[in-house]
């Protein structure tokens, strides 16, 4: 748990609302009671501070993720795995036409440090940007304490499989993970495992549904099993995905429970392409040239399946990999 504020370059003294401002290259970020204000040489943009902080939280927690993380239709980042673009209007057809879009590239560690400092300063004590709307207080108002514990949660990344000795632990009441109110009816029994001596590291099973029913965060895929570069990244979803994810590779969704609706648009322009309605057992690919945002009324379990191969974005850029996973 981080208990002390980390100071970064480009950070101002607190303004009249108690919040510091931050600069990254020619971008500046300021907050007041209601809004995040983002300025760059050819334009400026305002976002309500709650969706801004929820998006910022995901961008940091996922280490800029795969491809583009759009905070909204204007602001976002593109991960180049080692360095990161921060942009305004780059993936907005009209901003591009008007030539008021702006993009700057930063070393990964520099933009990460500034984003972390901003999130730490701008999130008040009562607000948890990972929580569902009814499970957290307000993001708005003047500066009122901090919630470093919530904003520095470490993301679960199993090395082989959750529950193995020396790997990510299971979740229980005792370890601080209660069953979520919307998953109160999920079976909590574990599989029956009998192991011959000496095979404790290999004979292993756990209840993934129990594990997910006890997730304390929403829209936060975390790795539970690893087959080389094939990563199972299940997550529990409630309300709206706080970012619009622009793929740089194919990713897959398997709906484990309940229902999510995805709005899919063109990655470059933001023009709508499709709505994808996913119910329990449904399986769908997100092509590598789209952006998508999900909506989940009841908290649901979603298996996000990623191919972590570092060669994929280059292969797609060179036309060696298809934007869609299979042709038929």
């Amino acid at each position, binding site marked *: 748990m981080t208990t002390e504020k980390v100071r970064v370059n480009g950070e101002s003294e607190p303004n009249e609302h108690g919040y510091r401002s931050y600069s990254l290259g020619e971008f500046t970020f300021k907050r007041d009671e209601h809004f995040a204000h983002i300025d760059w040489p050819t334009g400026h943009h305002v976002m309500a501070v709650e969706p801004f902080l929820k998006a910022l939280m995901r961008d940091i927690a996922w280490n800029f993720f795969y491809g583009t993380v759009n905070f909204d239709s204007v602001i976002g980042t593109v991960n180049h795995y080692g360095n990161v673009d921060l942009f305004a209007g780059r993936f907005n057809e009209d901003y591009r036409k008007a030539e008021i879009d702006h993009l700057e590239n930063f070393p990964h560690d520099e933009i990460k440090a500034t984003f972390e400092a901003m999130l730490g300063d701008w999130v008040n004590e009562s607000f948890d940007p990972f929580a569902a709307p009814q499970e957290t207080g307000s993001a708005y108002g003047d500066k009122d304490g901090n919630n470093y514990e919530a904003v520095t949660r470490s993301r679960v990344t199993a090395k082989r*499989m*959750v529950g*193995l000795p020396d790997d990510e632990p299971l979740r229980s009441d005792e370890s601080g993970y209660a069953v979520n*109110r*919307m*998953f*109160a*009816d*999920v*079976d909590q*029994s*574990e*599989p029956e*495992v*009998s*192991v*011959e001596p000496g*095979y404790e590291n*290999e*004979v*292993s*099973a756990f*209840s*993934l549904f129990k594990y997910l029913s006890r997730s304390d965060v929403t829209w936060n895929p975390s790795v539970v*099993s*690893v*087959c080389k570069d094939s990563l*199972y990244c299940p997550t529990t979803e409630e309300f709206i995905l706080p970012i619009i994810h622009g793929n740089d*590779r194919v990713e*897959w969704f*398997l*709906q*484990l429970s309940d*229902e999510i609706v995805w709005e*899919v648009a063109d990655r470059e322009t933001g*023009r*709508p*392409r*499709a*709505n*994808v*309605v996913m*119910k*329990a*057992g*449904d*399986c*769908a*690919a*997100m*092509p590598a040239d789209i952006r998508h945002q999900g909506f989940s009324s*009841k*908290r649901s379990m979603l298996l996000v*399946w990623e*191919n972590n*191969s570092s060669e994929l974005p280059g292969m797609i850029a060179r036309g060696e990999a298809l*934007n*869609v*996973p299979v042709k*038929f």
Partner: protein
Amino acid sequence: MKEYKTVFGSLTNFTKGGVEVINDSPQNYVFSNIFDVASRAKPWEKVAVAKNMEYVIEAIRAEGVSQWRIASHDEFALVMDGQVTIELLDPDSVTADVARTGSMALDGEPSGKKMGTIVARRGHMSLLPANRCYRISASDPSVILLQTIQGPDTVERWASICQTR
């Protein structure tokens, strides 16, 4: 307090969503439903429902007793409906061809040391460790989702399982 109902699918009770096209082709989303696929599959058929380069996720209708199988890499079996028993064996001599991906079936019963058994129900995920033999049985039709790499027994029939219009 209001009671929420969590909806899981099963072989006998599932509802499909779908792709509502605005300016696109539904084929781009390779949209299927694993219970739909398993309800129309033969026992132990390994039908790919998701594919990303060499990696696949297979929907498997578990019913009766499977062959013994082995892979040179870890695989993970998630039970999505029903109940299965997994037997694991440390083989004396049989080893997976390291160049091979996916699992391969073994003839008959391999000799080796018993490692243990797992009884897994809906929502339970089991490790099928690399270079070990496994056999799965299910007294009632069940559904397994298998995280693995495409192999010789992976079945691809996208046009018949996916939304095309």
